[in-house]
């Protein structure tokens, strides 16, 4: 049980860090915060997110 819990935590962390869970957060917020507005599909959302990133590459250090 403890091992499974640990693995669950690790999986949660990896999904959060990699941005894989960004869509889930978006859907949850869109449903609660802006009812009535259309919710993007995963494909639309990921494209939108990737294009946003193209406008701000962020610094990468040495």
């Amino acid at each position, binding site marked *: 049980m403890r091992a499974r819990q640990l693995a669950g935590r690790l999986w949660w962390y990896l999904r959060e860090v990699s941005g894989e869970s960004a869509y889930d957060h978006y859907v949850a917020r869109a449903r609660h915060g802006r009812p009535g507005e259309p919710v993007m599909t995963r*494909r639309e959302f990921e494209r939108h997110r990737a294009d*946003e990133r193209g406008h701000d590459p962020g*610094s990468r250090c040495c």
Partner: protein
Amino acid sequence: MTVPNTLGARLNLKTVLIWSAVAVAGAVAWGVLALARGENISAIWLVVAALCSYAIAYRFYARFIARKVLGVDDKRATPAERLDNDVDYQPTDRRVLLGHHFAAIAGAGPLVGPVLAAQMGYLPGTMWIIFGVIFAGAVQDMVTLFFSMRRDGKSLGQMAREEIGPFGGVAALLAVFSIMIILLAVLALVVVNALARSPWGTFSIAMTIPIALFMGFYMRVIRPGRVMETTGIGVALLLLAIVAGGWIDQSSLADTFTLSPEALVFWLVAYGFVASVLPVWMLLAPRDYLSTFMKVGVIALLAVGVFIAAPVMQNEAITDFARNGNGPVFAGSLFPFVFITIACGALSGFHSLVASGTTPKMIQKESQIRLIGYGGMLIESFVAIMALVAASILDPGLYYAMNAPAGVLGATVESASTAVANLGFSISPGELQAAANAVEEQTLVARTGGAPTFALGMSDIFSSFLGGDSLRAFWYHFAIMFEALFILTTVDAGTRVGRFMLQDTLGNLYKPLSNVSWKPGLWATSAAVVLSWGYFLYAGVTDPLGGINQLFPLFGIANQLLAAVALTVATTILIKSGRLKWAWVTGIPLAWDAAVTLTASWQKVFSGDVKLGFFAQRERYADALDQGKVLAPAKNLDQMQTVVTNSTVQGTLAAFFAVMIIIVILDAARVCVRAIRSREGLSTAEAPFVESKIVAPAGIFPTADERRELAGVGAGGDGTEAPPR
């Protein structure tokens, strides 16, 4: 608080015992490092000294700065909470943000500098990495993060302009752009030196391009957003590419992938240009996932490896080169050049760009700056310690045969063996060849740049407990691949950042340029950036005096210059906001950094020693050239001309950097004097107070109090669930 005595009881016995034990363990490890002379000690002492010092600094000094000096206030809403827009402003779990921040600050820098600085012995490097990070580097990162967070995530350049003045702002902008160019050139030079005439390495790295393209396509079209799955596939393909490199090495294709340094420069510049104009989802994003996972994985494995393998240090504690300044890897004596050579891992100005800009817009609570700013930098420092270990467990003879410039060593194992003997160390031609054969490289002579040395040390550690000698070559190329992979990611991302800066600045002169989607402008500015670093890269590759030897000090000076700008901004804000009594927290590291950088620039510009001073070097070679003479290590008149041109450019840059620092510091001093005289302080550009509604712990693990608070708002006890907004 009417019962003050019970407050004292909160410092319970268990805590006192634990911290006493940490202090004793650290003291013993430092004692062993300091007192061991003439005997070889285990690398574990170094690691223990580092970890105990970090723990104490984080627990006490970082907490003191956060609470007393900065006055973090968890009742105050952060910009992420106030301006939340789901794009750049977004409250992010502290542990997730630590991951992002660390991935953004840590790259190849902490793996290169300590390897080069090992020529001074392991002790100076270790002391600077540990004390430097505790009192300067981590402080700079945390303080910059804090002040940027209090200003809605403004960039360092904007803060310099608002808090100091337009002069400081322009100097900061110029510093950022020039350091970016030098950084990219030096990092690309590391890759060139690691891949030149190595078909195995070149093939493996070339394969990362189709792998990244495939991953990008997969995430865009086949399975949108499935990052973990895609990265898993990518890492598997990457390992296959490393293994396949070994097959290529043995096959008739080996010649195709055996490239000269000049050819590699061409490919890198072409790659940099194409990668920076393609949409990010094609190359940059998938590369970023791959390199981040590889980076964190390898560093974790290495930390475990050092404990299991417990390698013994072969390097001396302090070498003669530290005293006489005649080292072959880089010229100059211990002060100031150890502090210039090791920038990343001890004090890195570049971090202030990440700490102002991206990260401050995502922090949930003010108190989290300690974990993310200070803690993130401590992890990078630990990476630097491991690089120092990897270089110091190698036989010194082998270390110098790999790291002295080609002009000194000559091309063969015999000439290298003689040259190493002249330096006062020994390695036979047979041993040198055997070392190359063990990792299936043609030669290890003059493989400068740090990456091959680090890779060799790492393969030593890994093969001692994973696979033995049969996997030595695999681990070597694994390490080369891992380093080259994220250097190329930096080259790609850095070119983009440089391009954005150029578009932004030139957009003031010619409007269409500021439109980031206007293709001709995009191509022109990208080309300008790649050609700028490409020029320094080519100059480094063809420099008869050795490119790393000449360029790395410039990179260090530029990086420390940026640190001086960040620390100056921080000190100015502390004084302006009436905290003169705490100004030493950033003021002392600033004074140290300015002393180091200005001394180094002074020596690089004015020193009469031709090995050290760029202009002395220029004069000597120019005079000889006028008389038609050729001076070693140049082989002909063309190479003489190259030396003259390079030393002129490099000397001018060193002088330029020094002038920039002086301008920023003087301009800030003017503002500080005005603030001190005005008695009640000057107004700063801090955003007004808004009350926070978010509940979140400060550290990785919530304390008992934080757990209760979280339960009160119905969030998961460990803070895993995001609290309701």
